[in-house]
């Protein structure tokens, strides 16, 4: 912020890793431009004095939202699993999480 380039290609590559999106070097350049344009615009907030304004996270605050502690009818497990990319034994199936040796 404030130094003319709002985000670098290294930062975009880092953010892509955090967001778990595989990108090619060309795509990293593309998104550096895209995000940079939006973040440059966001620089206009820098001039605002908001020290005395608290943040607002939710437009219509409700608190202590409870329901009666009674069993509902869950969605059908087989129906859910029928839509999964891979399932077996009543569970979702994924590639190794920790590597084969684990």
């Amino acid at each position, binding site marked *: 912020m404030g130094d003319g380039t709002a985000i670098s290609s290294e930062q975009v590559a880092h953010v892509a890793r955090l967001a*778990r999106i595989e990108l090619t070097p060309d795509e990293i350049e593309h998104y550096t431009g895209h995000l940079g*344009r*939006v973040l440059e615009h966001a620089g206009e907030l820098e001039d605002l004095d908001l020290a005395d304004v608290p943040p607002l996270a939710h*437009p219509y605050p*409700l608190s202590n939202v409870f329901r009666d502690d009674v069993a509902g009818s869950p969605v059908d497990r087989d129906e*859910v699993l029928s839509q999964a990319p891979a399932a077996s034994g009543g569970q979702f199936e994924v590639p*190794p999480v920790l590597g084969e040796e684990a």
Partner: protein
Amino acid sequence: MTSAHAIASDVRAGARRASDVLEDFLGRIEMHDGDVHAFNTVTADQARAAAAAIDAAVDEGRDPGPLAGVPVAFKDNLCTRGVATTCSSRMLEGWQPPYDATVVQAMTAAGAVMIGKTNLDEFAMGSSTEHSAFGPTRNPHDLARVPGGSSGGSAAAVAAGFAPLALGSDTGGSIRQPASLCGIVGIKPTYGRVSRYGLVAFASSFDQIGPFAADVADAALALGVISGHDPADSTSIPAAVPDFEAALGRGVEGLRVGVISELTGSGRNGAATGGPGTAGAAGEVLDGIDADVTERVHEAADALADAGATVGRVSVPAVTYGLTAYYLIAPAEASSNLARYDGTRYGLRVDGADVEEMNRLTRRAGFGDEVKARIMLGTFALSAGYYDAYYGKAQRVRMLTRRDFDAAYADFDVLLSPTSPCVAFRFGERADPMTMYRCDTCTIPSNLSGDPAMSVPFGIGAEGLPVGVQVLAPALGEEPMLTVAAALERAAPPLPAPPLSTVADPTEGA
């Protein structure tokens, strides 16, 4: 075009068969949706079965409900059990939800017949439907132009006469802006008025479901059906649902209407009108709002004054920062909500050597360009070292917006502004991201505040295209909002029908 009111009335009285009504609309879709592409899926078989069940109920002397036999189109980010719900994304192509959204249940329980699922910008991120993975929807008023977005398919479906009612979702204007560009009515209710259970989440502190219709009365009818507390959505407001339709006939005499200065340029309905609140400090007038649009807003204000309302100008200074705040907060929330698309439980999977590689390759292949950009933007805005500067600051602007609206509503019952800064634009005309985002300038403030707002057609702008006027109201103020919208509808110059409707109707003269 037949209204939802007329269809339901006829079907309930046994004067028309729901099945015949349905075939009329399916015929129009068959004839014109190849051009418009409002639908991702037309659920003809399922609709025929549902319509037959409505007819059977009528035959047995049972009342199917206030939407008896009314075909309805659902935006394709509303979960429909056993019917593909794609969000117009490769990520969810072919996915069939295991449950219905609460609004889908409510509409069908009221007798409505689902006719199909409508196109949108991928995961509702966009203002033109150009970001759909399945190709854009075209505006029925001019096929060379966008219908707006992200609920462009729902808006186009109603404008083209494919369904009298449609539902969409509005996170930054995604109901109101396409309604404006397509010359129909679109309502974003108060945040929490309508359950979001079963709406695929984009930005959870903004998302709200609402109706599209050709007129205010039909929109109010649908709003009444979908409103109300739902224990399945913890943000749903436990408030009674008013009789929205009763608000339509009330006069505007004595109502105080404020025209938002920052969104309507200089000139008319200025301090000279002497309305309340005109002494407020004038904010900066935003650039980029076309004169043909602001002129219609001033005419709408004049019409309300003629009908007995007290009209003045009001400053809501924070609206000038709304766009920037929104485009930090909404991507931040999206980056969290869309983390669930990791190739594990539903939708696309691209195999990898381990889970993390599967995640990365799946998300690379499944998400389109705009969705990737917003996820990364949001991830960045939330990341260590930038959180306070971006996300934190944007949340403070959000509070500023809330306060400025509260101040405005101390002096006015409803506010007026344009819905969209411009009429429907041509495909590709707003390819630059900031240029596209500016489509939402006038609609975003209501998403930041959570207040209700709606778009009503009011005349034409450049090149004869529809212009929508936005009516804004305080939280749970749908009734005065609808009263004013109905008055505007009565005063509005007639809108040319979409050229599509001049093509021979397959059901006429057959």
